[in-house]
């Protein structure tokens, strides 16, 4: 076991190293760099910038170096814990990330919790009582959630909220609390802003967890051991929970490792619409403006989460299903 863990750990480092190169290349693929976009922005707001000045700025940002040197410079700084400075915000990348991670984790974990609490029981129920009313209703609602763009649902909910309660649900805080120190009132204000993001981001996730749970439990229930256990006189609920449900969690567990990075980056568009200061939204803007240290760091951060997540879900798999072994 410990040898397995140690070996996996080495692979993780290896994957991260490759990904750092890939991340850097992907970010460099689109034409131009941060300065081109910066200059065009200046020009559209009526200022003129000429070639020599651009060259000066390019040197200043180290963008005149060949790609591999830029990479080496960056990676050697990262190893020393220096993730560089955001061109756009003119602040250390680490600081920007540190400000966003707590909110991102809050929203993600809340969404995850809501998703699982709703989806798994309904999934189990609709497998056991296949083709019942609950099964159908669950199916239809979950597919509506899946088949409508998150963006649209977010807008509709926000507009409804606006019309019905005269309350703007975007962002995490009302403007009067945004810069205020933490207080009970601020906390309550935040709670008022949370439901819509959680519903919107959770809705699509709920559908898939629910359906997957239902499906894999159906596969499990038809196996002989269930019949055997039933024949032995085990109570239905106890029987369900003891083994089939645990095994049926397998596909969910297989992918649980990616749920976190998935929510961080996957809900990006929604986060932008809802004005949530998440890592995904930060990365998105950084990619578009080619604020490359921010973008590269975000990509690395997500990679790190994915790799850790894969590892964790492998360990979890062994735990939920003792039949699985790794030699």
């Amino acid at each position, binding site marked *: 076991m410990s040898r397995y863990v140690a070996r996996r750990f080495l692979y993780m480092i290896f994957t991260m190293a490759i990904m750092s190169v890939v991340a850097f290349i992907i970010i460099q693929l*689109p*034409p*131009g760099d941060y300065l*081109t*976009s*910066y200059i*065009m*922005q*200046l*020009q*559209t*707001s*009526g*200022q*003129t*910038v*000429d*070639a*020599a*000045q651009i060259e*000066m700025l390019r040197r*200043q940002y180290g963008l005149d170096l060949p790609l591999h040197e830029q990479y080496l410079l960056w990676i050697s700084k990262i190893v020393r814990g220096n993730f560089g*400075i955001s061109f*756009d*915000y*003119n*602040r*250390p990348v680490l600081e920007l990330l540190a*400000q*966003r991670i707590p909110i991102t984790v809050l929203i993600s974990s809340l969404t995850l919790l809501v998703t699982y609490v709703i989806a798994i029981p309904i999934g189990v129920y609709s497998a056991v009582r296949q083709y019942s009313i609950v099964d159908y209703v669950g199916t239809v609602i979950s597919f509506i959630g899946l088949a409508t763009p998150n963006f649209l649902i977010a*807008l509709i909910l*926000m*507009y409804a909220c*606006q019309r019905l309660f*005269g*309350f*703007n649900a*975007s*962002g995490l805080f*009302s*403007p009067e609390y*945004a*810069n205020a120190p933490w207080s009970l009132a601020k906390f309550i204000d935040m709670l008022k802003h949370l439901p819509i993001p959680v519903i919107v981001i959770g809705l699509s996730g709920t559908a898939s967890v629910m359906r997957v749970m239902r499906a894999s439990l159906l596969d499990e229930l038809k196996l002989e051991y269930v019949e055997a256990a039933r024949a032995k006189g085990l109570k239905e609920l106890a029987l369900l929970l003891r083994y089939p449900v645990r095994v049926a969690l397998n596909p969910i567990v297989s992918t649980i490792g990616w749920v976190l990075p998935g929510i961080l980056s996957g809900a990006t568009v929604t986060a*932008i*619409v*809802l*004005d949530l*200061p998440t890592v995904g*939204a930060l990365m998105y*803007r950084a990619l*578009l*403006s*080619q604020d490359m240290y921010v973008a590269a760091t975000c990509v690395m951060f997500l990679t790190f989460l994915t790799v850790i997540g894969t590892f964790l879900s492998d360990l979890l798999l062994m735990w939920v299903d003792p039949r699985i072994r790794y030699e």
Partner: protein
Amino acid sequence: MRSKTARVSLILLTLALVLPVSAWAMTYQEAPMLRELVEAGLLPPVEERLPLDPKVVEPVDEIGRYGGEIRSGAFGPTSGGFDAEGLRVQNLLQIEPDLQTLTPNIVRDIEISQDFTWVKLYLRRGMKWSDGHPFTADDFMFWYEDILLNDELTPVKRAVWMPGGELLKMIKHDDYTIELQFAAPYPAIDIVLAKSDINGRFFQPKHYLQKWHIKYNPDAEALARQEGFDSWWQAFNHHMAWQQDQLDVNQPTINPWVLKSIDAQGNKYFERNPYYWKVDTAGNQLPYIDRQTRVLVRDAEVRILRLFSGELHVAAENPLPVANLPLYKENEASGNYRTMLFENTRGADAAFAFNLTHKDPVLREIFNDIRFRQAMSVAINRQEINEIFYFGQAAERQATAPPMTSFYEDWMGEYFAEFDPDRANALLDEMGLVWDRSRQVRLRPDGRPLQIVLETTEEFAPVAELVAEHWSAVGVATTMRQLERLFFYERGPANDRDAAAWTYDGVSEFSMRADSCHRFRPTWGTPIDPAPLWQAWFDTGGQSGEEPPEEVKTIYALCDQFIVVDPASDRYQELGREILKRNVEGLYVIGTVVAPRVVMISERLGNTPREGTFAYDFMFWVPYKGDQWYFKE
């Protein structure tokens, strides 16, 4: 817009305002939040904070009351993330809402020589920075000697500082008198000074910034490293950055509000400047409003919702689509704001340009044929665009200067602007671009189908989609590609595209004079730049890029003459007309329609405009004097 009249009115106004009003003439009042500080002994009394000769402003509508927080939305954290910044910005001269008159603002008075070769600025005695430090000629000299002349801080001197190709000179006569001298006549200098804040400002807080300057602090390099920068000038630039780029929350200012903090999201919080140098006629120190917040709103739809809920109080700089007007109108009551249509000085809301230095020689030849651009212009059904996007209320016209321009002639706006597909087809036929056998698309001289990609961003995509269909209908198969804004910007300089759609603005007479006439130099400085390689040629003095044709060089030469000629002269009219004529006849940029600009202001705010002209040429909000706005209740 004649400089002489402007100058006369300047002087008259100064006389009228400055003379009767001095320290002895008036008692001053201040905001309650400042009075508390004074009473607590944390701030000197208002009489000591104001200059001896503060600017006394005639109320826009009425004397306001103190208090409140005004909020506006910005799209990005730094550059390009406009918000209601124009409500904060102060310039050396003030642009009045008639968009003609310039009055003294930061300066007490100004004097321009007959031949436009020098200008004298008279500062307000006893005026202070927001931290209480005196604001004097030294702050101007610091900008000139230690920033403008310093090659590390200003490696490239911008055109506005270089009339006649030579850097302006600044001389200090005494603590409150500055003189600027020019190598060539600089008739637009009053406009440049009225837009001083985007023209480099002309002064900087010496007392605050000098510790990061190598000349004043031998340890500046070490200080910069300590703050995480690689060299002293990087640190200096960081602390000096202003407007959208400002990130240093300790930097003193002379604006009505001071940046106090920036939160994790990038929202900026401003608070009143206790040393602000304006009072109203009743002696109340401005501004009336206590605080200003710049809220970061990334999505246009969210911004709309926030306006409806009253969370934002003003919107206009980031254009609000006219197509949404019914929506704004119907929510006026719930959001307690009013929606107004301001005049617009744009040359075209959505304009189109072909890449005249295209990499593909065949396309380049087609695009450079004037008949092709004429055909493309008359192929556009402007009336349809007007109906679909602007309720038929926009002006359908060619891309050129607005009619308020003194040398504008009516034919210019009408030039090849009539929808006439038959004529378009005839022109294309005449060029020898024959149809293919199934009459789906025309063929290029090399036999391949004539296909082009029209690139644009979200704002112009709906119009571009329509125009793509109009063009395809006359046999030029056009595909519209919508790109993300920054992504779109980059493709121009890369000389990577066929055609692009963007707005054509900055074309008012004001901008023509002060911004080196640059939107009328066919290749210069818009995201739809029609000829990246010619631009490169001009930028590098012929080192790279490609040499443009004679006609383009002629227009450049005319522009160079235009910016130095006395605006009261006949020559000025003649040159202006010639530049417009050559531009419009060259159809370097093809226009569509110009719609009024949607402006939304909360009804809770007083002293706010009800009509006007909203344009970046006039720095958006600046003529509408944000320091006088106030909350009514």
